[in-house]
């Protein structure tokens, strides 16, 4: 293969989800004001309380300033030209897969997410969100037998209003931050999951987010509630077409774990990251937070962040119940001109609460990768424990890695440990593996996988292989 061809093949491989789907969209005005917020609510046929929730959020949002404290620079989104709601034209909400627009079905097939239940990974239920609306949720009946509710948030507003009303905004309040407020005003869809008392969810739940429309933002809202003695594992995956313009993705995820409940939330984020010069790519500004409300509850966040032009994301746990456990396992990979400022917050309120943070940042190209984490032990949190480990790996000479840990302890019995390392993938390391027969790309992939092992093993089995591959593809050709 000639050098140019090899190069082209590599670039082609780099982001294989960059295609767009040609579907007809419903008309919707651009920009945002109270009428737009009302219109979204109306489109979704929402009850009055939901409309009020949105309006309250909108009014809070217009008073708020866009934050700029993070270690990233970018052009601010133009909120007045953004389209806040984008739904494919035909078909109202569907119960049968036959009703899904074939083009959209094809999109998911291309992404490797077949919507036919028999073709799916066994034991994984999928909710597919295309731009602003949920397209299809699989295995609904099987889950219903176990008493688990898994549906789009729009359906939940219609069918389980009491649950939504009680919990939405309880973990991430409307005014929490600029983007959470915006999301609360204009969120379009997302997933809802409710696991009743004494129930172990019989399968992995998964939502697959796809931004297709060029001018639309995606504002999804996810709410997961695990009642006493229940367990659930949930995974989200994200891709988007390649456009020259930046697209905004501002999600809110709320998790509620009651007594003895356990929620495991995993993310494989592979939004389009922009080109070599930082043109295009997704702004990934999301607020994710869980509360361990009941005693002995546990929330784990595992994330593999490989995409997006700019990522600002801090999945957090409020450890309210005594003996509750919070975990954060993260791999953030940045290449080219990507910027990631990501980490977690562990807020210890209950006694004997325990948190673990394992963060692996990998930077290549001209990218910038920051870990930002807060560990807070409140006065009443007797015997709280935290262990944090933040490792950074640099590939090449033109990237940056940063660590910003914030530690606050108001209780003398608290124990906080923090370890941090920085290493560089050296020429010598690559040469060693090449001498053992591996290609340069395989060598880097192996080194990186080794570096991330502790985190990758936390991903659900079904996705671990995919994650390994993704890391390899992401860093292909990143060394001279």
């Amino acid at each position: 293969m000639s050098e140019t061809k090899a190069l082209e093949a590599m670039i082609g491989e780099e982001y294989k989800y960059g295609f767009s789907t040609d579907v007809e969209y419903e008309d919707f005005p651009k920009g945002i004001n109270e009428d737009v917020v009302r219109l979204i609510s109306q489109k979704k046929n929402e009850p009055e309380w939901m409309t009020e929730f949105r309006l309250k959020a909108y009014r809070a949002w217009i008073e708020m300033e866009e934050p700029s404290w993070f270690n990233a620079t970018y052009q601010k989104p133009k909120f007045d030209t953004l389209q806040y709601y984008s739904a494919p034209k035909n078909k109202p909400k569907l119960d049968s897969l036959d009703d899904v627009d074939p083009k959209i079905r094809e999109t998911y097939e291309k992404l490797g997410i077949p919507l036919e239940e028999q073709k799916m990974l066994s034991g994984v239920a999928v909710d597919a969100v295309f731009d602003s609306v949920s397209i299809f949720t699989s295995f609904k009946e099987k889950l219903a037998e176990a008493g688990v509710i898994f549906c789009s948030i729009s359906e939940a507003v219609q069918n389980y209003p009491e649950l939504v009303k009680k919990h939405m905004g309880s973990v991430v309040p409307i005014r929490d931050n600029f983007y959470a407020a915006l999301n609360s005003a204009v969120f379009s869809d997302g997933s809802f999951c409710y696991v009743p008392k004494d129930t172990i969810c019989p399968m992995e739940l998964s939502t697959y987010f796809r931004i297709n429309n060029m001018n639309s933002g995606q504002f999804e809202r996810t709410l997961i509630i695990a009642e006493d003695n229940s367990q659930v594992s949930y995974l989200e995956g994200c891709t988007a077409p390649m456009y020259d313009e930046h697209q905004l993705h501002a999600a809110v995820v709320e998790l509620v774990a009651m007594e003895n409940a356990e929620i495991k939330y995993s993310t494989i984020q592979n939004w389009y990251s922009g080109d070599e010069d930082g043109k295009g790519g997704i702004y990934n500004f999301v607020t994710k937070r869980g509360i361990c409300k009941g005693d002995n509850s546990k929330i784990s966040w595992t994330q593999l962040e490989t995409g997006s032009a700019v990522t600002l994301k801090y999945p957090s746990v409020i450890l309210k119940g005594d003996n509750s456990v919070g975990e954060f396992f993260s791999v953030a990979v940045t290449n080219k001109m990507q910027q990631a400022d990501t980490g977690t917050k562990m807020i210890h309120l209950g006694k004997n609460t325990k948190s673990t943070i394992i963060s692996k940042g990998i930077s290549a190209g001209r990218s910038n990768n920051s870990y930002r984490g807060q560990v807070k032990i409140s006065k009443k949190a007797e015997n709280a424990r935290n262990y944090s480990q933040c490792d950074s790996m640099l590939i090449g000479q033109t990237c940056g890695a940063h660590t910003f840990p914030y530690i606050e302890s108001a209780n003398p019995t608290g124990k906080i440990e923090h370890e941090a390392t920085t290493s560089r993938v050296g020429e010598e390391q690559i040469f060693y593996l090449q001498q053992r027969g591996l290609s340069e790309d395989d060598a880097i992939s192996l080194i990186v996988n080794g570096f991330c092992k502790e985190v990758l093993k936390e991903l659900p089995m079904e996705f671990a292989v995919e994650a390994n591959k993704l890391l390899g593809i992401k860093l292909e050709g990143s060394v001279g």
Partner: protein
Amino acid sequence: MLEIKDLHVVVEEDGTEILKGVNLKVNKGEIHAIMGPNGSGKSTLAKIAAGHPEYEVTKGDILYNGESILEMDPDERAHAGIFLAFQYPVEVPGVTNTTLLRESYNTIANSRGREELDPLEFDDYIKDKLELVQMNPDFLERSVNAGFSGGEKKRNEIFQMAVLQPKLSLLDETDSGLDIDALKIVANGINQLHGEDDAVVLITHYQRLLNYIEPDFVHVMIGGKIVKSGDKTLAYKLEEQGYDWLEAHAKVNGEAV
């Protein structure tokens, strides 16, 4: 098998010339020892033969089985059967020895049109090799060279050689840092692996390794050149007299040392 012709090599970064016209011919079935004082260019010779990116060939050629390998990437040279046992084996945290070795073995097997081995077959295959260097099976599940003692790292190199079965093994100071027991184990391993179809080049400071591995030829390298070649008796002479007499000899020949 290996033919090095008037090889001149510089450090790519600053252009310092390290090898100043090396000639060496290694045939199948032979063991060669290259000796010489620190900084004479012995390790560079091994590294450049394996394709280390830090160095650049400015003149001369390296032929392997009659063909120039200068344009080949390090992995292609490995596929062709060239193996370098590193003087300072590199750590790869989080990657187990088994993972690396299986990937190496299968990549090389694949390039030579041989069957790849699945994890179970591979386990069987490497068990014997482990005994060769007397290493505990636990060792397979440890991260490559991470936290290994100096001796363990060197033994690991020979273990890798045993698994990958190269045609040409370049062993760069595999003996340094080994205690006498480990030295015997390593030497015994190399002897057992060596046969009529492969060649071994030992790079060493000390004659003591040659007590256990008998070389067919001994070369002395000084100032980036091979200044003297002979049989194993040359090694004894070096042990007794050091390199001074040869350095003087090199100067007489008009080379700055």
